[in-house]
């Protein structure tokens, strides 16, 4: 079996938003839609304040609440853990947006462009099927599938790896197969301490946050 997951090493993330920009460039998302966001979070009170950059987006959950509530069946889940949306079936009710604890889903009701009129890149990326329906991070499913078909290894081969991971300049974002004990993500999770967001919700997120190395291992 395969379970694709993403890791964000919070010790490494510098909040540069390159992942966000790479995602927007690759997926042509309209203004206000960020499938890969990096939140700038402050914790604590002066003088003990921590600033944490938190990459977030669709967590491709084991038990996706978005899929549970979706009335049309447009939201699906593949055997490899990826949560998908069929844009031809979605009715755009936004119920999935109300169910996602990670605020990972978006809906726009009309085409919108960052610079008023669409640029050449906007026109190349524009997909009318994505207007009026729910959208979200796909873990770059097209790159992933094309890469696998070409015999590449997602997480190691750039062409088969999500663009946010590929673009990450500090190596904070990693991608790979959790069910492969030799994958980078399996090794990182074994060698570090981590958490998943809103774990108590029972969603089983496929997005892990590293916060420290295990004593004696690093």
């Amino acid at each position, binding site marked *: 079996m395969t379970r694709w997951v993403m890791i964000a*090493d*919070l*010790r490494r993330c510098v909040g540069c938003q390159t992942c966000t920009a790479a995602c927007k460039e690759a997926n042509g998302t309209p203004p206000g839609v960020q499938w890969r966001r990096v*939140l700038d*979070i*402050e*914790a*604590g*009170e002066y003088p*003990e304040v*921590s600033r*944490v950059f*938190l990459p*977030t987006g669709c967590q491709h959950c084991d038990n996706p*609440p978005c*899929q*549970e*509530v*979706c*009335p*049309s*069946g*447009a939201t699906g889940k593949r055997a490899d853990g990826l949560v998908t949306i069929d844009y031809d*079936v*979605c*009715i*755009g*009710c*936004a*119920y999935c*947006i*109300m*169910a*996602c*604890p*990670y*605020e990972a889903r978006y*809906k726009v*009701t009309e085409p919108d462009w960052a610079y008023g009129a669409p640029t050449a890149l906007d026109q190349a990326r524009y997909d009318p099927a994505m*207007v*009026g*329906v729910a959208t979200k991070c796909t873990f770059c499913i097209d790159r992933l599938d094309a890469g696998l078909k070409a015999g590449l290894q997602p997480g190691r081969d750039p062409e088969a790896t999500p663009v946010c991971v590929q673009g990450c300049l500090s190596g904070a974002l990693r991608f790979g197969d959790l069910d492969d004990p030799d994958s980078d993500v399996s090794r990182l999770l074994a060698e570090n301490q981590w*958490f998943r*967001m*809103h*774990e108590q*919700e029972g969603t089983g997120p496929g997005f892990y*946050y*590293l*916060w*420290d*190395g295990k004593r004696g291992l690093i």
Partner: protein
Amino acid sequence: MKQMATARRQGYWDLRAAGNFIGGGTGTGLVLTAALAAAAGHPADLPLAAGLGCVMAGLSLVWLEIGKPWRAFNVFFHPQTSWMTREGILAGPLLAVGAGAFLFHRPELLAAAAVLAAGFLYCQARLLRASRAIPAWSTPMVVPLIVATALAEGSGAFLALTAPAPVMVGFALAAGLAREAFRHLYRRELVRAKAPDGTLAWFSRPEVHVLQAARLASLALLAAALAGQPTAMAGGILAMLAGWGLKAVMVTRAAYTRGARIPRTPVRGRGTSRIVAPS
């Protein structure tokens, strides 16, 4: 240590979505009250028709909200787990059986319509409960609150549409009291569960205090009506409008997300990780 709040108000469901809960609640409340009235020997045709009209109006409003209205029939595709699908599945039979009860005056049809209305109302309540991004909706107490509010709205509307019999005034008063009780428990549960500050702040705003005063005034008017004063219609209308206001606030104003939350800060350099308590 605590982290900054990142919760924000949802902006995807507006008054059109709230209208579905308002129309569906008042409509099903009217159908249920009409069935009760008919069983007690009171005329219920007009409230039944109005109730079905409210349900239809609510569904029409939500149809205007969805991004792909011409695919609306896809809403029926996921009854296994989706309360929205289940609500949609019950809507058709409710309207058809209710129309049959109105046209043919058959008590068994009215009873069936009441069962379907109860199911439709329960689906609406569970629909909100399943919205896990929004603590103001996903709290368990939202289910009895939505049901009690619908009964208070429907029984209030009933008093505005018919000559008020004491038993129906008593029912409206009981529904209003139940709504107050569940509203109190709902608010307490939100505080206990540490709902987002924005949500809690909304339930302390002047507009909400006005709604609360309207609900209490409706109870006083209904109690006076039970004592023989001609205040049943006013009390009923106030009970209905206050319920509409409560739902509009819940759906469009107090609906803040959970926000991102980190349980620990990362270790950097020679620093240490700190536990981040829920805000």
